[in-house]
């Protein structure tokens, strides 16, 4: 049977066909759908872990326990999981262990553009890189085999275009994989200096064996064509190169770490001009340079952003594709926005009104940095808001904490905000942290998390009580408040930043896109009452539109959340009837 699947769906299918029985992950674009789709298979236990480190540890445990185990994350997630990764490289595996890491060249949905191959090389684990959905599935199955054969975790590196493109995939049966026996093996699984010293040489030897394997593995293939031009490439850039160079010769690498010395040299010998085409860092290129090969790569191609066929045409062949129309008008940009009805809007409206410094974090609420809310001062990585607020206080004194708050989403707080909060308590900080509890992991498309009360499969489970959690780490001032109660919320924020001790405000209101949230009817502006003071415009709601001579509410966008009437001093915003889902 052939089906059209996203790269991520194909990975999930591969995990299933490989007979894996455990999967753990933390969401992150563009990797999220891998685990969402794995969760659809009843044969596989799957979970959203609180963060990537825990997810990988769960997968490592499952592997040591004898199962084939999968773990998925976005590129920056691997930073969080780097600690277990680097040592799991030493312990090796029992059941196969495969980690799917999705990079985001072009930063469609990320805060940086790091290249997973660099971390993987540091951790000394092999990396496979598929270039379409069909390979996503095949490479996944190959990765489990390599993992067991070479006793190593294996990384499958994806990029946004591979993860989020659908292609044809042929289905196969699920392998009837039997759990490997579990045996206590201290010298392999207890990494204290005495044992680790004996494991490190094993890792180095393994890398040599893997490089040997790469010479003949079907994952790497040569497509001979015209030998005037030879191209070494992998992943999605193979597809772009094929569009541009057609019948040239290709060395398509499916295994991008370790690299295959002889294969590369032999290929290079045969061709006149040799290009290395890879997005982000020059990993293959630098290896070729080490081998003394003359290649054209980053001298012409960018280190930043996503590639495309046209980019290769322009940079490598000097052919620029010109536009063929006479239209000169520029389209104004359309950045993402907080949705109509978003609870975060109310929070930022108040923070802006109070002119506070806001150390921000990662989630939908990062959009609070954009006009007109423009409240967020910093965004670094998940969980950073809390430590950053504390650091600002320690740099500039307690006065700073009197006009600063950290904002952090519920999922992000559990991911890595809680440790920052413990730091504030322990080291006598007086910062105020606002947890934006919208009852879901919003940004990545509505995943459950430990605060929502449901598992990845939608089963009810024990819910982390944020209030008790904050109290337990030593925060005496914890307040729960609805940000849509603008007056009450403002009062609470003022009181808590004024307090000379650490405090937490749990701003509680569910995401407007959750099914159980029922707003409505939609609102309209009574033009007779409206004085065009434009207070409502300060909310930055995409449903409220300034037409110049009047302000109106776009009835197809409005969800009737009733926030804007609260900022209108003239009671000009009224219910219109009609309902949007």
């Amino acid at each position, binding site marked *: 049977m052939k089906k*059209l699947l996203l790269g991520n769906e194909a990975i999930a299918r591969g995990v299933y066909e490989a007979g894996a029985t455990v999967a753990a992950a933390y969401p992150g674009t563009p990797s999220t759908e891998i685990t969402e789709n794995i969760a659809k298979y009843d044969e596989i236990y799957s979970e959203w872990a609180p963060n990537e480190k825990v997810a990988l540890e769960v997968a490592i445990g499952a592997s040591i326990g004898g199962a084939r185990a999968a773990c998925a994350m976005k590129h920056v997630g691997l930073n969080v999981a780097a600690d277990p990764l680097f040592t799991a490289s030493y312990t090796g595996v029992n059941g196969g262990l495969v980690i799917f890491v999705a990079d985001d060249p072009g930063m469609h949905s990320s805060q940086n553009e790091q290249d997973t191959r660099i971390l993987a090389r540091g951790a000394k684990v092999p990396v496979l890189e598929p270039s379409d959905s069909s390979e996503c599935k095949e490479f996944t199955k190959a990765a489990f085999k390599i993992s067991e054969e070479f006793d190593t975790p294996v990384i499958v590196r994806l990029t946004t275009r591979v993860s989020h493109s*659908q*292609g044809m995939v042929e289905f196969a049966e699920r392998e009837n994989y039997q759990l490997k026996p579990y045996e206590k093996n201290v010298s392999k699984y207890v990494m204290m200096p005495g044992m680790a010293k004996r494991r490190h040489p094993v890792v180095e030897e393994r890398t040599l064996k893997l490089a040997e394997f790469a010479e003949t593995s079907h994952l790497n293939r040569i497509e001979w064509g015209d030998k005037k031009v030879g191209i070494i490439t992998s992943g999605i850039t193979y597809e772009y190169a094929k569009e541009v160079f057609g019948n040239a010769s290709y060395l398509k690498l499916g295994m991008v770490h370790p690299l295959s010395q002889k294969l590369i040299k032999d290929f290079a010998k045969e061709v006149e001009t040799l290009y290395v085409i890879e997005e982000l860092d020059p990993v293959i290129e630098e290896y070729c340079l080490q081998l003394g090969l003359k290649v054209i790569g980053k001298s012409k191609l960018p280190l930043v952003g996503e590639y495309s066929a046209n980019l290769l045409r322009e940079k490598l062949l000097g052919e620029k594709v010109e536009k063929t129309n006479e*239209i000169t008008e520029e389209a104004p940009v359309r950045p993402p926005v907080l949705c109509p009805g978003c609870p975060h809007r109310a929070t930022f409206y108040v923070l802006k009104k109070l002119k506070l410094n806001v150390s921000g974090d990662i989630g939908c609420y990062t959009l609070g940095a954009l006009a007109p809310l423009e409240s967020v001062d910093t965004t670094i990585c998940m969980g950073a808001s809390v430590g950053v607020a504390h650091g600002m206080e320690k740099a500039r004194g307690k006065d700073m904490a009197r006009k600063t708050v950290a904002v952090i989403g519920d999922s992000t707080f559990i991911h890595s905000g809680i440790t920052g909060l413990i730091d504030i308590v322990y080291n006598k900080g007086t910062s105020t942290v606002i947890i934006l509890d919208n009852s879901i992991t919003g940004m990545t498309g509505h995943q459950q998390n430990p605060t929502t009360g449901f598992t990845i499969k939608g089963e009810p489970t024990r819910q982390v009580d944020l209030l008790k959690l904050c109290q337990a780490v030593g925060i005496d001032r914890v307040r729960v408040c609805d940000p849509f109660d603008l007056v009450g919320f403002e009062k609470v924020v003022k009181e808590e930043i004024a307090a000379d001790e650490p405090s937490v405000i749990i701003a509680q209101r569910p995401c407007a896109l959750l099914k159980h949230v029922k707003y409505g009817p939609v609102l309209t502006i009574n033009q007779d009452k409206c004085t065009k003071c434009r207070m409502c*415009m300060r909310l930055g709601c995409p449903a409220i539109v300034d037409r110049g001579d009047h302000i109106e509410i776009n009835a197809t966008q409005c969800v009737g959340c009733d926030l804007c009437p609260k900022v209108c001093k003239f009671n000009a915003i009224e219910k219109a009837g009609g309902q949007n889902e």
Partner: protein
Amino acid sequence: MSNLNIMIVGVGGQGTLLASRILGDVALSSGLDVKVSEVHGMAQRGGSVVTYVKMGEKVYSPVIEKNEADIILCFEKLEALRWIDHAKKDATIVINNQRIDPMPVIIGKAKYPEDIINKIKADYNNVVDVPALDLAKKCGNTKSVNVVMIGVMAQHSQIKKDVWVKAIEKTVKPQFLEVNLKAFEAGFNYVAGK
């Protein structure tokens, strides 16, 4: 034979993903190689979104670039303007005449361009201008704009109607099937200028 390249452009939340799933299913039934490239994540929050659907004997890059699209389905006028450079000169360009203001326009930092559809018509011969939102409303759900647009496209395609209907039946949730089939009919029977 060269590929058939179709783009769907719109605003995050307009249902472009569902439209691309329907198109993907139709493409699959052609027996050709197919790739569909989508946008997930951040841009889905009201940002500018684009989907590429490519079919042919062998498809490599999933992305459609400048002057390469045979068909562009534009769910919103400004997005039509943004992506028009991707159209071939003889492309079929279906534009929903809906206007959704982006935040820079809403807050007065940028102007929404005037008369977009006529500007595009001046340069391209096959432009179909559709009041898809009104048609969707008449069918009972403003969310079905996406399937109205698919209907208009189906009318201009060589693919049989029942292939489209089957793809819709497979793709949309059962509780929304009736309204979406109505929306498809509305698009399929829409005659420009009426």
